[in-house]
């Protein structure tokens, strides 16, 4: 019996369609536009030593008040983590990312901590804060809810949509390469375009366009493609960062999606550039960043210890002659 080829072709096309989301465009810079100078991604942190990493660059004034009563606007209907959009007593709108019950790692603290670190070293970030719990009012009354990451819908920021890791005006620039190096150092495992946002930032009559890596919560654990574990200090401490240097490119222990962003793309200079930015943060600033994420000092110190070890490793990378086959 001879089967009609069309059903087989249909299955093939269906299988290909399933695979397509994993395919990504070539990594290359798009033509720079006047709206996207490098400062849209990164601005040199001249006052880095003085930056407050507990409240962040957006300051204490914008922080959510723990004693406030938050009114439910809507429940988040996408993604894995539960979340809510709420309005506080001052009429400000917040996006709340809550912990996932029974999951071993929680994204909210990671997101706030990494946001503090990135914004301190010059990368734009929206105002995010951490509250361990809060009072929520909905149709059924008021009760305590698990807290998490609170992201303010600040009137100065207008979200315009996602931007592509693969094709943007900054590919190949030092801040772009350094940003990837920093995220790899912090074991970020979610280099998806959906996690990036372009914002229009207005301050008086000044308007800027910001390219922001926004959803930073999948980090400080392991990297992987299927539900990698995050915010686990034991895993993070055991993890490897740099595997070696091959043909002039640093090889990372990175197992997440979008290897094309990482494999044979970052030079030792890129990695050292990013690590040098982090190296300038003081111990107090690191502790403040983790305190902002709600970490206990003991856990924070363990994370910081491993991060500083990774920074030291990054600062040494490329100093030894490369064997060409990788360095252990």
């Amino acid at each position, binding site marked *: 019996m001879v089967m009609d080829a069309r059903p087989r072709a249909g299955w093939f096309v269906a299988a290909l369609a399933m695979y397509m989301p994993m395919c990504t465009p070539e990594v290359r810079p798009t033509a720079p536009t006047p709206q996207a100078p490098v400062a849209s991604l990164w601005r040199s942190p001249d006052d880095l030593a003085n930056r407050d990493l507990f409240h962040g660059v957006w300051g204490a004034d914008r922080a959510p008040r723990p004693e406030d009563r938050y009114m*439910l606007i*809507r*429940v*988040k*209907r*996408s*993604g*894995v*983590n*539960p*979340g*809510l959009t709420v309005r506080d007593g001052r009429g400000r709108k917040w996006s709340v990312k*809550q*912990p*996932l*019950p*029974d*999951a*071993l*790692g929680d994204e909210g603290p990671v997101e706030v901590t990494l946001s503090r670190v990135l914004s301190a070293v010059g990368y734009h970030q929206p105002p995010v804060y951490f509250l361990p719990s809060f009072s*929520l009012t*909905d*149709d*059924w009354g008021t*009760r*305590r*809810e*698990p807290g998490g990451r609170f992201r303010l819908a600040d009137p100065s920021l207008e979200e315009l949509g996602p931007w592509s890791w693969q094709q943007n005006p900054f590919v190949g620039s030092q801040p772009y390469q350094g940003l990837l190096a920093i995220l790899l150092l912090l074991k970020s495992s979610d280099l998806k375009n959906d996690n990036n946002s372009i914002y229009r930032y207005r301050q008086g009559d000044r308007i800027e366009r910001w390219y922001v890596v926004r959803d930073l919560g999948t980090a400080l654990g392991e990297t992987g493609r*299927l*539900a990698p*574990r995050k915010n686990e200090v034991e895993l993070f401490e055991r993890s490897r960062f740099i595997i070696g240097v091959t043909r002039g490119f640093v090889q990372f222990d990175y197992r997440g999606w979008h290897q094309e962003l990482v494999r044979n793309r970052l030079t030792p200079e890129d990695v050292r550039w990013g690590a040098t930015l982090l190296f300038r943060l003081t111990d107090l600033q690191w502790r403040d960043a983790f305190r902002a994420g709600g970490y206990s000092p003991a856990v924070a110190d363990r994370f910081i210890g491993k991060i500083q070890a990774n920074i030291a490793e990054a600062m040494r990378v490329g100093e030894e002659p490369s064997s060409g086959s990788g360095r252990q």
Partner: protein
Amino acid sequence: MWRFCLRMQPILLVAALTVVTKPAQVLAQERSTGETTTSEAEGYFTEPRAIAKGIDFAVRTMGGGDGDRKDGFYPETGAMITGAGWISAGPGYRHRLFDDRAIVDVSAAYSWRGYKAAQARFELPNLIRSRLAVGTQYRWQDLTQVDYFGEGTESLESNRSEYRLRSHNVVGYGRLQPVRWLSLQARTGWLYSPELLSPVGHFKRGFPSTLEMFPGDMAVTRGDQPNYLHGNLSVVADTRDHRSHPVRGGVYRAEWATYNDRDGGLFSFRRTELEAAHFVPLSSDRIVFALRGWGVVTDTDPGRTIPFYLLPSLGGHNTLRGFNDYRFHDRNMLVVNAETRVAIFTHMDGAVFIDAGNVAARARDLNLDRTSYGIGLRMHSSRATFARFDVARSREGWQIVFRLNDPLRLSRLSVRTAAAPFVP
């Protein structure tokens, strides 16, 4: 022995899939914002890392516990009735419209034994400050191998037969919830002439067709089944802390239903149900004692009868676990289950249980003469039971039960369409 092995094979196969497929279904049943995170009782023994990682992986992969179903595509794993086989799956898609004021939900599923089902639902869930929900649902199902042993408590196990039931059902429903724990529900629908056929599908067990085994049954002799106009009213009080893994609280339900045969009236009848389950934690939640009772009585006008596929039924994984699914049918039924769960590990409980109940032609003849007992294991998160494995014993032998749900759940709480057949 070969039957034992036959039962064990799918259990082992499904074990690997369990934690991946279940959470979307069971965790989604939690209410949207009414529950806060609960810390889970630690077990009496240190949990192996593999179990904690398995639960963690399941929750992170499928989402968990925020209580409400997410928008978008989802795997439909809970659409099938008892007897469909050890697994069923299919695609589903859900979307909320108008700022959560409306839900559109469509899904289809196919089971191990070739059962097929598809449904489409439109609901306005948040009327009057979330106090009122109204909706409509259409469901088509083709149930290929439903068991029937004959009517009465003395029906013989050796008379086991199977039938195929194909039906379309469209319903409209409303749910009034004056307070969070109390709801009043009303439903009316049209069950379009169910087709009663000989069994088909995969993995047939070789039992004869009900149409041949019971040729004198009224429903069989009638041939074409009638259209039914059906309706019900129910009141539910639910104080459980979590629907799929309750530790404390209870759920109590009373329902009155009517089925009106629109083609002559012969199969018109009324049904009243009372059901309650209560959960009592002991020893810092490490031990949970659960008690559940379910009674169903039916009545008809003189000269009317109830087709066998709509008769109250007893037996199987949700009622008398030591008996086959759908083992007993009659006009009335009663079952009581008592179960004690002990937290061996944080996410695994051991359980001992006893079930007792019976069916009877007259409600006053109901008793608890049919008993089964056994032991089991429960895999769960703090909010949802992912899987259970029970070994149960009755006078008719051993039954091994593997299911992706909580044993004492009130399955009818989430069913909107007509219960055809009656599912124990």
